[in-house]
């Protein structure tokens, strides 16, 4: 690793983010980020589902309970859903999720929704970078069980 090319070393804590991506758009967006070499912090772990409509509140809350510092719900832009309107339903579910997250006392930044197309690699990378910065300020999730970082 050449010192000048490397970003500044951060000694501090790094968040761990669980990102749910739909097969057709946002997973492709993450692939495009790779193809475009859009560098981003190594904080996100992507879980692929076929449609954002499959992202279950069960999955989101389990991710928090396991120790996720943030959970990202991503899918196709509205109108572009591969399955007609799965993302419209995601949007409705997301409202519910937002409310529960607030009730749980989690900061709103810890749950985020974004529509990212398969070509929007840079947008994907920026999203991960932005969320990472926000969560770094907040620190670890209060729901994080002991023993996981």
């Amino acid at each position, binding site marked *: 690793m050449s010192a000048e090319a490397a970003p500044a070393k951060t000694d501090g804590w790094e968040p761990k983010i669980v990102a749910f991506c739909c097969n057709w758009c946002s997973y492709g967006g*993450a*692939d495009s980020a*790779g193809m475009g070499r859009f560098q981003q912090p190594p904080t996100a772990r992507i879980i692929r589902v076929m449609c954002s409509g*499959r992202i279950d509140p069960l999955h989101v809350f389990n991710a928090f309970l396991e120790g996720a510092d943030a959970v990202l719900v991503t899918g196709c832009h509205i*109108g572009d859903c591969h*399955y*007609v309107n799965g993302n419209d339903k995601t949007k409705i579910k997301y409202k519910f999720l937002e409310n529960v997250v607030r009730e749980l006392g989690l900061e709103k930044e810890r749950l985020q929704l974004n529509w990212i197309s398969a070509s929007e690699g840079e947008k994907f990378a920026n999203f991960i970078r932005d969320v990472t910065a926000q969560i770094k300020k907040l620190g670890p999730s209060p729901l994080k069980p002991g023993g996981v970082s």
Partner: protein
Amino acid sequence: MSETGTETKGTEVKKDSDEKRVGVFVCECGVNIGGVVNTRAVADYIGTLPGVKVTSVNKFTCSDSGQADIQQKIKEHNLNRVVVAACSPKTHEPTFRACIEQMGLNQYFLEFVNIRDHCSWIHMWEKEKATEKAKDLIRMGVERAKLLEPLQASEVPVIDKALVVGAGVAGMQAALDLADMGFQVYLVEKEPSIGGRMARFDKVFPTNDCSICILGPKMVEVARNKNIKIMSYSEVKEVEGYVGNFNVKVEHKPRYLDIAKCTGCAKCSEACPVEVPYDFNEGFGTRKAIFVPFPQAVPLRAVLDKENCISCKACAKACERGAIDYDMKPTYSDINVGVIIGAVGFKTYDPEPKHDFGYGLYDNIITAMEFERLLNAAGPTGGHVVRPSDCKEPIRVGFVNCVGSRDKNTNIYCSGVCCMYTIKNAQLLKEKRPETDHTVMYIDIRTPFRGYEESYNRSRNLGVKFLRGRPVEVKEDPNTKNILVRVEDTLAGEIRNLEFDLLVLATGIVPHEGINQIQQLLKLSKAADGLLMEAHPKLRPVDTTIDGVFLAGVASGPKDIPYAVSQGSACASRATILLKNKKAITEGITAVANPDVCVGCGVCISMCPFQAIKMDEQAGKANVVKALCKGCGTCVTACPTGALEQSHFKNNQVLAQIKNVFKFQEVAV
């Protein structure tokens, strides 16, 4: 890791045994992964996970030797689950599914982990963290793999008919090739005539052939082919179904005349008193409210433009065959096809709204398409290039390249064709009138294909001047209406003030308004440039992510004519694989209902956009119709009792990944 092959062989491995025996294959992808992620350390760690019987690191897992390694280890270690940690499943999953299937494993026993696009490529300078992330991702994959269940991909019959949307040169080529192979083709075109943009060009580079002279015969060939049904002045309104069996609703817009009676004699046009700007000539000259689109139109039939019609009925009186029908309504056809080819075309960038380089402010600035029509012998001036302000033939002509292309304020991409058509346009006018003086203002001249550089040289030899620089100021001399351009000649390092009689803008390629509709109807993806996206930019350039749907021509990125024609042929060839085999393999991933848990509330039915869930009224249970289910899983999330599951993305399978993001955790089946 130390396990070796057991006596279990042959067909027995097809049965899913209780003991999960996982093999993990870590790809270095040359240095793409191996240069960042410590693949050896990753494999060593993953080898410690319960159930992982063998790990292997390959330079290229997708290569012949990499795949042979997988197959050999399946045999040696009696593996029943395979995890490949490499690039993207979107490109390579089919390869490895086929690889393990050859060894008698169900293809859905493959778990694909992306440690290149999602790891090494995006953490190039954080090798240690990238290595840790790769461990996490593969651990998630291993635990998911253990819970994967065998699925059956289903075979669906393919109707051996095709729909081609858009009858430009790419669509026509696709239709002709398919028709010549014996398949029936519906060719839908939204304009009253087939031919597309090419019908409007005067001559085409680099050979300067007369465009309509080479296109016209092709249009006639399409019309005469008994396997092609042209649906002109028609639009696709609804698309349902899937590969092999698309149900398509096509709207035939009313021409307000009986196409069977009309002969295209244009007597109606002569009688019509209404004159409106002629769109085919880019607004130069006029046409009537009832008109034949252009002399070579196919079908050669008139069309009434109801918006501009004053209902004087002069055309009805003039028509000897009584073809005119003012009360015509749109009609619809329902067609069933096995494949769809989208060749929906493009439009040129419109400099009017932003007045790029003074367009729209000063009379004597025109676009290249307008110039093209002026050059054309069948155009508004009979082939005389004149300037709009005084209809005089210009002597000093300026050309500005990259208008609406290579510009962060409009479109960043290169439209690919503007350099060449500008070179051609300058050449053509110079040949017609050698006394003219031409200056092309460019950023870079791009002449990549056969004959293009030669054409560029020919223009220079004819005396066309090329000036590297982009105009910074464009003004009009109010007295002469001449155009005054201030431009930096970046090669000479000088500011030049030039005066032109006519300025021509080389406008780029942009998606047309209809592209969104077709994108949504066919459920395609759009790229950042607003044009449609292919399945893979290199290896599947005419396929889309939707099985049975293909793309040809400029709808998927700027192209010149030979490229668009090749794509038309390529689509026909790709489509023929399905049409000839008469069957397609579809994904085995669907929703599955458990009748023991279902309470018949019907929430899932309202969730499904494909009407794939039916209520069994007698039993009071929901039932998934597998042939209709697309496997999105939205209904599963909505089910309040947990009666629905999505195969391959069952709750425990997804949870296995979630629980293993942070540490190793086994998830119960």
